């Protein structure tokens, strides 16, 4: 597919493609919002926008982590289970010591996720086991552990300290904390991937692992790093989940992995690594959440939702493929002119 470790002209044309790609999602979003709003103007009310943004925040944090892993030509299917484990951990923690500051809770959640990420990464690197297999396995295992631990118990909103629940609902200048946190995660990851050596190395690994190794990139370490980032963000998302929903049981986040992968793929991150941005992934998350929300408002049968998500994935990868073929053809032409 697309390669990044090539001379400058390629990179710039790739950037254009990506911009077009993200523009496509923005246009789709705009059309969707316009149609829904015409049918029901309350769709654009402050409360409604806040609800969509809150829903997006959790999915976007997961999608950013997933994008980092997918860019390195791996995949992390365990994120839903990790989210559940983290949410239950912080819920239990807060039950026992309600006075903990929110920042500590966030760190604990991220740490739980990071540990899962280390396990995934280490198995991929040292065990030589493909990421798909490893994370499919840890999907089962982590969920099983959570069930074991939780038994039948559920943590209800009234057992959580109000300070923590306020964090889930409070806003700064009308923007919820959770959304700000998601934006922070997005910007930091986006900048690191784009402007820092480590970030570019991840793209190189995804384009061609062999070439990356030959170029002296510590592929093994970076792989583990990518899984730790994805795990930590899934853990963080678990805290956001707990704060937003207030009710946590062992099944929290079941099946999320599908939505996350969908958001990433719809957002233009190539499944075989090496291209795509976290901005796109976040936009994908926003689009999916908005679709779910507008189906309810448009009173379209909720059963269509999953089918639409599936159709979007196929559309997105199909479109990416066509663009990639065009770009490759264009480059070939230009290359022949030069030589």
């Amino acid at each position, binding site marked *: 597919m697309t390669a990044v470790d090539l001379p400058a002209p390629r990179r710039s044309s790739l950037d254009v493609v990506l911009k077009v790609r993200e523009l496509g999602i923005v246009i789709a979003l705009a059309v969707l919002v316009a149609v829904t709003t015409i049918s029901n103007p309350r769709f654009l009310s402050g409360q409604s926008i806040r609800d969509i943004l809150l829903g997006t925040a959790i999915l976007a944090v997961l999608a950013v982590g997933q994008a980092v892993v997918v860019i390195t030509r791996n995949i992390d299917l365990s994120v839903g289970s990790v989210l559940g484990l983290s949410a239950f951990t912080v819920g239990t923690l807060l039950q026992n010591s309600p006075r903990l500051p929110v920042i500590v809770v966030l760190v604990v959640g991220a740490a739980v996720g990071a540990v899962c990420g280390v396990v995934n990464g280490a198995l991929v690197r040292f065990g030589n086991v493909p990421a*798909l297999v490893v994370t499919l396995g840890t999907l089962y295992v982590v969920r099983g*552990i959570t069930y074991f631990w939780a038994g039948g118990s559920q943590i209800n909103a009234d057992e959580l300290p109000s300070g923590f629940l306020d964090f889930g609902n409070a806003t700064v200048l009308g923007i919820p904390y959770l959304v700000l946190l998601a934006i922070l995660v997005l910007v930091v990851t986006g900048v690191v991937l784009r402007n820092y050596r480590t970030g570019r190395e991840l793209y190189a690994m995804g384009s061609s692992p062999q070439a990356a190794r030959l170029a002296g990139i510590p592929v093994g370490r970076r792989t583990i790093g990518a899984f730790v980032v994805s795990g930590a963000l899934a853990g963080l998302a678990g805290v956001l989940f707990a704060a937003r929903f207030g009710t946590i049981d062992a099944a929290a986040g079941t099946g999320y992995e599908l939505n996350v992968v969908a958001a990433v793929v719809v957002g233009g991150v190539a499944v075989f690594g090496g291209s795509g941005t976290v901005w796109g992934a976040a936009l994908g998350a926003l689009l999916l959440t908005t679709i779910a929300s507008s189906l309810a408002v448009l009173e379209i049968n909720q059963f269509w939702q999953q089918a639409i998500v599936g159709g979007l994935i196929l559309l997105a990868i199909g479109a990416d493929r066509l663009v990639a073929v065009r770009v490759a053809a264009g480059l070939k032409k230009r290359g022949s002119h030069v030589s």
Partner: protein
Amino acid sequence: MSAELTEVRAARFLNWNVAIIALTVIVLIVAAATVDSFGTSQNFGFLVLDLLPIALVALPMTLVIVTGEIDLSVASTLGLSSAVMGYLWNANQPIESIIPLCLLLGAVLGAVNGLFVTVLGLPSLAVTIGTLALYRGLAFVVLGDSAVADFPAVYTDWVTGTIGGTSIPDVLIIIVVLAVVFGVVLHATPIGRAVFAVGAGEQAARFAGVRPGRLKFWLYVASGLISGLAGVLWTLRYSSARADNGAGLELAVVAAVLLGGVSIFGGKGALPGVIAGVVLLGSLQNALRLSDVSNEALNVVTGVLLIVSVLAPNLARSVLQRRRT
């Protein structure tokens, strides 16, 4: 690839095959000896019925994975087949035409996967995650959240019944026949050799006169067809057509296939090992459940087995290499 290397590879995968079969036999013996009523003929019937969908879908899945692709949409195909079956039954169609139509539907759904993967050249992982959502979504569109029951007793009784006066479940015939067919195709025909060749390297296979695209397309059709069949049998077994039938089954199938020694990278694998993998997973779950081990433990066991099945041969190899050097 040198001949010697091929031989080493053949030896290794044979070893894993033997290992997994041996492990399965041991588990069966231990379970029969220690778990009350594991060895009864009635429990054998339950076990076979519980294994049925995974065993069927694992057969084409093995071939698909050996070519280096994957099909995650199988459980959703099963669900859509079941939903359509319920819908048509409600619409007063005769069951004798519903069943072939559902098989045909499965084949068409598989063909859609195949077209995306071969004609458009898209990664099968992404395509089938997409169709996983799409087909399941369509199943809900067709049947909503309702369940259709009251399928004719002749059919439902056959699926849950046994052969004559024996305690051999009827559906075992289907499993055995299809397993033999897929086994022969994979291990004793040019098609099987082409499957391995494509998995080992598409370029090389093409030079050897194989058309990878066409081959993969038909494998996806087979995968869809068998998933459609599994949907029909599932519906008849529970005499209940529901859109959520078989949800999540794809993971169990992939787990069983990989446990059976098939390489996720393609090019390696054998059907006897896969069958052993299916039986191992199923009988472990059955035995643990009979011993009142919780559901959660089953999850953990499945996950660990899956990772270990790939990890163990890798570790063994690296240990061997270290010793040799």
